[in-house]
């Protein structure tokens, strides 16, 4: 008989200013849990991570005190939150009833109309205030990138955000002081191994359980398709999977490192990657989502596989015996949503050669909306050599076939030949029949092919020294 995870054990966390102990199934979301507890300020607008109406803060101890991040409560299991501080809109007022600056300025700026999106925006703005970021429009836009409003047209909300940041936080969020007292005693609803050997043991003991990292892909099966996920193993508490380290040759990124942390880490290391991350999901999604999840999910329209292919990255998978193997990202995908990951393995780390990050690389994402949209085409390019000769070429695409693809034939065509506009034209021409994109809700097959060609052309021209900025990089000043 297969054992099931020890669900039904009491889960302990802090909700606003109270310690809560709950008996919950593994796949119950934060949103469902807080609403059942009568905290109905947090709203469901989509239950798929797209609208932000459910945004709450999740606080965790860090070296700078408790650090709060925004999370889409609709797709985050409450069972993962053991020992953490969950703050809902009801928890923002001070004990004597004073509004938080994010709330106060939303009122002053007329930032709510129907009010349904408002608690979510308030939480996103409150997170910025608590993180004490600079009072600047760009920061506010990033902070609310996962919040949709259908009524206001956003102008007053952005203004409220800037104003709240100017005011700043005056008092610690209620309940914050309880965080330290709780962190040691964490009874769990979801298995939360603390290190790799515990993780291996958990996978061995519970072969039917699903691994979960950010849950931003996995939980949609629960909230959109009404599937049950009774057994979850949380990889985000595995210490080693949260590490970013480097040896002489490679950068090694733990599979459970969130995109938001990657943004911080790659700032100054790769601006193309940071720019691309700003277009991957929203702030909320990036606070939870991970590279490991993006790869393991096996989607042909995931954003990072083409990048990792272009960087010659390798995936380190480890099995329950603790045996590790390295697979080039381009060899990881076998077919539509099918990878070489086997049932008793997990993704532990992603290895990226320093040389790749240091060489010329360019990433392009095509989508209907510039922010928080899934790619119709994702193109990643890396070239070494000189402007008149490519010595190493890496070309990879997402959204153009059943898997992320690497185009060796085009790479070969370009490598060690004299780089000229003619050669660029030849490469673009040759791209034509190499991929078989589909027509779907995001784009037509023809547009996908044309965009792939345009991306390749752009990357090459830029390598040759001709600046070809994308629209998000151009100043809008009239």
């Amino acid at each position, binding site marked *: 008989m297969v054992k099931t995870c020890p669900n039904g054990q009491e889960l302990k966390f802090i909700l606003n200013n109270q310690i809560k102990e709950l008996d919950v199934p593994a796949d119950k979301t934060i949103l469902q849990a807080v609403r059942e507890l*009568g905290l*109905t*300020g*947090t*709203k*469901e*607008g989509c*239950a*798929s991570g*797209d*609208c932000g*109406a459910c945004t709450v803060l999740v606080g965790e101890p860090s070296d700078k005190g408790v650090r709060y991040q925004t999370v889409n409560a609709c797709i985050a299991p409450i069972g993962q939150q053991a020992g953490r501080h969950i703050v809902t*809109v*009801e928890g923002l*007022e001070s004990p004597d009833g*004073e*509004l938080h600056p*994010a*709330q*106060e300025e*939303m*009122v002053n700026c*007329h930032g*709510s*109309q*129907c*009010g*349904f999106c*408002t*608690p979510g925006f308030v939480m996103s703005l409150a997170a910025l205030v608590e993180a004490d970021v600079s009072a600047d429009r760009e920061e506010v*836009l990033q902070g609310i*990138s996962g*919040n*949709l409003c*259908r*009524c*206001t*047209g*956003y102008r007053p909300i*952005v203004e409220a955000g800037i104003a709240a940041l100017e005011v700043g936080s005056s008092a610690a969020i209620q309940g914050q002081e309880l965080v330290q007292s709780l962190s040691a005693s964490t009874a769990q609803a979801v298995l939360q191994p603390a290190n790799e050997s515990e993780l291996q043991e958990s996978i061995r003991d519970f072969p039917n359980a699903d691994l979960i990292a950010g849950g931003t892909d996995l939980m949609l099966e629960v909230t*959109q398709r*009404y599937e049950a996920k009774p057994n979850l193993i949380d990889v985000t508490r595995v210490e080693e999977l949260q590490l970013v380290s480097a040896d002489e040759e490679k950068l090694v990124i733990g599979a459970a490192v969130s995109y938001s942390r990657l943004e911080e880490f790659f700032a100054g290391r790769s601006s193309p990657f940071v720019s691309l991350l700003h277009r991957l999901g929203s702030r909320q999604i990036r606070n939870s989502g991970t590279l490991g999840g993006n790869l393991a999910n096996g989607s042909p329209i995931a954003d990072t596989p083409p990048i990792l292919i272009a960087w010659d990255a390798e995936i380190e998978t480890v099995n329950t015996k603790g045996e590790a193997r390295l697979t080039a990202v381009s060899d990881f995908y076998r077919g539509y949503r099918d990878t070489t990951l086997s049932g008793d393995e997990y993704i532990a780390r992603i290895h990226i050669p320093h040389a790749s990050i240091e060489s010329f690389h360019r990433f392009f994402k*095509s989508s*209907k*909306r*510039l*922010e*928080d949209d*899934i790619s119709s085409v994702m193109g990643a390019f890396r070239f070494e050599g000189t402007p008149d000769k490519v010595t190493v070429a890496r070309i990879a695409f997402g959204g153009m076939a059943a898997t992320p693809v690497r185009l060796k034939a085009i790479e070969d065509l370009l490598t060690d030949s004299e780089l000229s506009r003619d050669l660029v034209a030849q490469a673009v021409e040759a791209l034509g029949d190499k991929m078989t994109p589909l027509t*779907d*809700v995001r*784009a037509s097959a023809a547009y996908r092919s044309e*965009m792939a060609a*345009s991306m390749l052309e*752009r990357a090459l021209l830029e390598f040759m020294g001709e600046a070809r900025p*994308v*629209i998000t990089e*151009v100043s*809008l000043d*009239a």
Partner: protein
Amino acid sequence: MRKLTNGSAGAGVVDTKPVVGSDLAHESAIKHVTGRATYVDDIAEPANLLHVATGQSTIAHGRIRSINLDAVRTAEGVVDVIVCDDIPGDPDISPVYTGDQLLASQIVEYVGQPIFAVAASSLEAAKRACSLAQIEFEELPAILTPQQALKESQFVLPTRTFQIGDASKAIDAAELVIESEQTVRGQEHFYLEGQVSLATPTEDGGVHVVSSSQHPTEVQKLVASVLGLNIHQVQAEVRRMGGGFGGKESQAAALACMAAVFAVRTGRPVKYRMPRQDDMVQTGKRHDFWNRYRAGFDAKGVLTGVEMELAGLCGCTADLSEGIVDRAMFHADNAYYYPATTIHGYRCKTHTVSNTAFRGFGGPKGMIAAESMMDDIARTVQRDPLDVRIDNLYGPGRDVTPYGQKLEQHMLRDMMQQLATDTDYYERRKSITEYNRNSDQFRKGLALTPVKFGISFTATHLNQAGALLHVYTDGSISINHGGTEMGQGLYTKIAQIVATTLGVSYERVMVTSTRTDKVPNTSPTAASSGTDINGMAAKNAAEKIRARLINFLADQHGVESDSVQIANDLVMVNGQSLTFDEVIKAAYMARVQLSATGFYKTPKIHFDKEAGKGHPFFYYANGCAASEVLVDGATGEYRVSRVDILHDVGSSINPALDIGQIEGGFVQGMGWLTTEELLWDDRGRVISNSPANYKIPTAYDLPEHFKVSLYDQPNNEDTIYRSKAVGEPPLMLGLSVWCALRDAAASFSDYRMNPPMDAPATPEQLYRAIQAAKAGVAS
């Protein structure tokens, strides 16, 4: 810092600001930001509550051969399952005509049409149970596009025509003639709060329904009718909606009816809340349109004749499509004078969900035809599109619309010129042309477009409203009216109106939930009319109370009634100052009635539908917007770089709320015309069925320079405090973005050709237009 209070109202607080005309915050603002504003799904759930889900058609058109629901009935958590035959009263829940069945019985006419319904202990249990049904269909051929419907003459209602003069002859005789056609996609409402209703059985065998609806009276009427009850046995209540935009005018009723049927069958409270995907598949949207036009004009681009054919994709039933296609026809001129014209409006029947009201109600679909035509003409005669627009505006002597209404107020010429001057339109046009000449990859586009929108329900009988006002013995006031609050600030404005009319402070007035047992037989909160009609009704009630108080005091003090004044919570009689509270106490003791109803019906309007002639609108609201865009010619990606708006709201009751409506409407219109692509596949399935693949604008899509100004001029008609309606008109200001994008595309042909471009202008659409412009030059 602000302290919490228990809502907006609290009697006894004196405020001396002028109430109407001031920038008061939304009456629920503090409740919104603290999460205490209660929506239907937030009402504390009773322990025995049931949840509803429906089993749906998987085909666009066909006959139901067999239904086997055995596994559904025995599934975990299921308490009740119904099919059409189980509905005790009339299963037809159409708002105006017929055909909208609560549950399909023999024929299905769209993918997603409900066939059976389940009530279970949780939403998840209900959803899981639904997937266990076995239904066999016999598929029939499906019509999915307006073109197909036109070819097969499939219409939900007859075609109508507006005609002035002989357009065909005028066009044939014109110096220049152009013609064009265009597909304009629909729009998903994407109110943040999905459709939801909660029904509780009452001791009289009736039900109390709390619903997220713009039309409580219709909810009440239809619930009574599906249950076979008298209307008085049903109460419908709406405190607020998390957005409506027209999507909760007729579409909310189905949920209320379904919940009510289960409530009566089981004797338990029942909630029906649609998960987002069901909402996006099962409820009606803005209509797709296929527009064609032929225009004749002189060398300066001034029109001599216009023929237009507007074909709306209505879906499988009429729903509100009569009025919607009418309104497209009413706005096919937008702000321009058509000396001779024929406008046909087709109501195409397709095997898709029945389309419904959406902010603008067809108006945007007519207007986009007029605005693309203006750009086409301008490029044909090689003039600035703004000049061609201004030269074609209505004006004295050129003032009769295609439906015979004579325009009495001409504001747009002045407004457009003012906006052009204030935003350096002509200088920017010059520098943009220069920039475009020197830039290969990036191009800029600019457009300044007007909106003239007719105000009134085109169904004349709906232009009536009621209100109920109570003054309590502590001087606090409660007002109830037929309008619903969906974020537009109606309750705030009504409280302002009552306070101003009575001469008391705003804080004294509390607006209470809209309920059919307080104010009966109400009209939907739609057609931008909420404040116009309910505000007038509330004012009427307040005036009655005011008159009673004045007469009472005049009698008591033996003075003429005009020597009694009420202002700022104080009453002046005979040089003596009394507080409002004192006066109310005294009036009560003297047995003065402190409760009044109010009523209003809009004057002057009439329309003969068959002849297509009349005076359907009480007045028009006007506006104009100038938008500038930056476009990447290699991909079709773009950003809006600057937006300036000048809009006419008459004398504003609350400028902050009005600006909110203008900004929000503009962005919603821009979304419809840019990133929001409503798509079906060739089997009739909505494939833009979730926010993951249907993209409404985010904050990032708005430029930093986004300025709205009010054109401050009182309405020349006698409307509520001389204001103008503001709900819908600004949506169509979004056309300036679409026209600016097409302007940028045309730059790739050096403005020599009119690149065809459908709406919305997704990056892909714009890329196609750019390719066409480039090819136009090459050839």
